């Protein structure tokens, strides 16, 4: 985890406002979610978020309008 803070320290020379500095999971591919399926996926994520033990959720869902 420390390497990311070393990078941040360098950036701090030019930048003042950081929004976040975190380790994240970035998808390498995606599953397109059509409008009809939006609600199902959102409900699923919301139920997961409701759980007090859950801190972060990552997925490769790509919501299509």
């Amino acid at each position: 985890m420390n390497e990311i803070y070393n990078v941040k320290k360098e950036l701090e020379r030019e930048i003042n406002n950081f929004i976040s500095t975190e380790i994240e999971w970035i998808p390498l591919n995606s599953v397109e979610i059509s409008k009809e399926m939006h609600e199902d996926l959102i409900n699923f994520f919301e139920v997961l978020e409701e759980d007090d033990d859950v801190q972060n959720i990552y997925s490769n869902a790509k919501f299509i309008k």
Partner: protein
Amino acid sequence: MAGHSHWAGIKHKKGKADKQRSKIFSKLSKEITVAAKLGDKDPAMNPRLRSAIQAARSSNMPKDNIERAIDKSSINTELNFENLRYEGFGPKKVAVIVETLTENRNRTASNIRTIFQKAGGSLGTQGSASHNFNQLGIIKIDKKEV
């Protein structure tokens, strides 16, 4: 909170906002308390705490709440929190990674397994879903700064 932004653009039901905000604050506080407990109470000496405080500030958590969360780490409790990662596939075979912070891994595993199953999906073994992702350090800055 990392990872939530990808569906933040989709309209959420109104009225849930307040409940969500309180839940988000509660989770942000928990991370602060655990980070302060596991390392130095000084964010300058504790990267995890630094990150947790930054996330809390970005969500507009009041300074008082942040300080309270740090103070809470001094309370001696037998509870040991672990970071556990669950992964699996949700509706439409969407790959999902769930990061948790829990003092009861059995409860958490059981609850998450149920949520996946009810949605028609399932939890997988380590690596089954995460190979669809790259784990990276992400630093987010305001556009105006560039």
